[in-house]
């Protein structure tokens, strides 16, 4: 019976969930349209080389691979932002605001709320730079989650430049830097300290790196962060975050944002701010994004850009746990039919559907049952009557 099963980490979306998913997609698609975004739909299959030759290559153990007829290796799209960046650089000549609803595939996802086929909705603002662009993108992320009906979420904002700057002062090689990054990302100061001491980092630098895991909270973290380092790159990151924070407060989102300078993500094409949407009902972000000014270089363009993606499955789980799923939409009308009255029944259905009513035409000649919908019609040779 194995041929009837699905591989692990993927799911069929059944009607009840799919209806809700469609409703959320409708809301988001409208929001994207009203925000001036153009929809795109990237191809699912791409060349393996596209993702292995770029500077921030996707590790091959995460890629779903297939072989093309000419023997070249193909992959199922592992990241939508990479695909959009490629499209913008190679086909759209740079500046554009793009939105998408697309799957990405990850060979390694752990199961649970992280499947291997991940359906995302997202936007990318290509050719836009500066603090206002960052703040606007975060504001739009908030608008989108509001529009989807999610309550009580916060957007956690960081900046990769702070960590990068602090680490510059440590004298680590690339492999050591990556190790420290992973440890700081896990807020594991203990082992980070060991590596830094071995590399001979100064006491002040060491203290800064070890303070990173605690540098989160409201805008007050900026003062603390500033007192910890003189590094120019780190200082620039804080100054930028201050601007973004100030703009978001003026835009009315003070209670929706918090900051974390210890955020140092794995997928490292990000070059500036990074942010994620968190809600207490779910142990993983429902939204994540950031600025990636140098990603398009790999595809032959120079396009500063910022964007975010919403994990639609996670969003649905969050909405369900909050009890904020869109309400059920029962059938408005059912049309039953006796033998010989088929064309009349069909015309009745067409007329009801034209009024915008969800109408089911029963083709099994069943007797009319008034409990089926608010309006039940029976078509006979004598005509149509409401039951």
């Amino acid at each position, binding site marked *: 019976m194995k041929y009837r099963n699905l591989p692990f980490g993927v799911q069929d979306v059944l009607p009840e969930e799919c209806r809700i998913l469609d409703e959320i997609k409708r809301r988001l698609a409208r929001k994207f349209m009203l925000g001036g975004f153009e929809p795109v739909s990237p191809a699912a299959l791409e060349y393996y080389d596209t993702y292995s030759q770029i500077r921030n290559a996707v590790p091959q153990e995460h890629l779903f691979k297939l072989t093309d007829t000419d023997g070249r290796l193909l992959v199922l799209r592992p990241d939508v932002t990479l695909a959009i960046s490629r499209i913008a650089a190679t086909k759209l000549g740079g500046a554009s605001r793009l939105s998408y609803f697309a799957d990405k595939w990850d060979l390694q996802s752990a199961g649970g709320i992280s499947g291997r086929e991940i359906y995302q909705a997202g936007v990318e603002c290509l050719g836009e730079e500066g603090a206002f662009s960052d703040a606007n993108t975060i504001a739009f992320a908030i608008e989108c989650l509001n529009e989807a009906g999610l309550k009580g979420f916060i957007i956690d904002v960081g900046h990769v430049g702070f960590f990068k700057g602090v680490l510059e002062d440590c004298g680590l090689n690339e492999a050591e830097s990556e190790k420290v990054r992973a440890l700081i990302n896990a807020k594991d100061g203990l082992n980070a300290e060991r590596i830094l001491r071995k590399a001979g980092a100064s006491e002040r630098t060491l203290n800064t790196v070890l303070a990173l895991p605690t540098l989160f909270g409201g805008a007050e973290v900026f003062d603390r962060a500033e007192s910890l380092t003189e590094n120019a790159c780190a200082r620039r990151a804080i100054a930028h975050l201050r601007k973004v924070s100030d703009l978001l407060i003026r835009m009315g989102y003070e209670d929706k944002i918090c900051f974390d300078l210890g955020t140092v993500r794995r997928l490292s094409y990000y070059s500036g701010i990074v942010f994620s949407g968190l*809600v207490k009902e779910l142990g993983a972000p429902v939204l994540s994004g950031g600025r990636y000014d140098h990603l398009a270089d790999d595809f032959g363009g120079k396009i500063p850009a910022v964007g975010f993606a919403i994990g639609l499955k996670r969003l649905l789980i969050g909405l369900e746990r909050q009890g904020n799923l869109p309400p059920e939409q029962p059938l408005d009308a059912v049309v039953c039919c006796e033998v010989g009255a088929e064309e009349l029944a069909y015309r009745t259905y067409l007329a009801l559907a034209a009024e915008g009513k969800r109408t089911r035409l029963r083709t099994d000649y069943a007797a009319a049952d008034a409990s089926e919908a608010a309006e039940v019609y029976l078509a006979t040779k004598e005509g149509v009557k409401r039951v």
Partner: protein
Amino acid sequence: MIHFALAKGRLAEESAALLEKCGVDVSVLKKETRKLVLESADGKYGFFLVKPTDVPTYVESGVADLGIAGKDTLLEQDKDLYEMLDLGLGGCRLCIAGYPARRDALTSPHLRVATKYVNTAKRVFSERGEDVEIIHLNGSIELAPITGLADVIFDVVQTGSTLKANGLVVLEEVFPDITARLVANKVSLKTKSDEILPLIAALKEAVS
């Protein structure tokens, strides 16, 4: 409410004692019970008693906001969570141990390593560029070199008395400070920071 995943057994008792010092009402943990979900009388804390190796899974998924797990388990599972504090409990070392001189060196060119920490062992030896054969065992690891199943073991060593009694020695200390760590779910730390941060501060105070 903060949900805690605690490893059943001795570590749970030590963890409870530590939490009590920080003003957490842990009286439910002291009662003899078969219940798996316990709630503190003041309704502030919920406790799940789980298998030690399952603590990171509960915390990563967010079902538990905080957990107390051994560093050995955290190394082995590499979950996406925050390691907030070294609680200093249950100190031991992750070591390579075996007979002082290797037997069967000619007929088994690859070092055979018996361990319950398969992922950690793979990582340790591959970082050194060494080809080894990893043999996964679930307990009584010391038996492997004695019976000839493996050349060495990669396991936690507390006092070393089991090794000694069987003629084995620590060949190399790979991770010297394997202790219990306070771990936090990445989202909970931000969304429940008002409740979690004071507790972490208190725990930090208690263990320093």
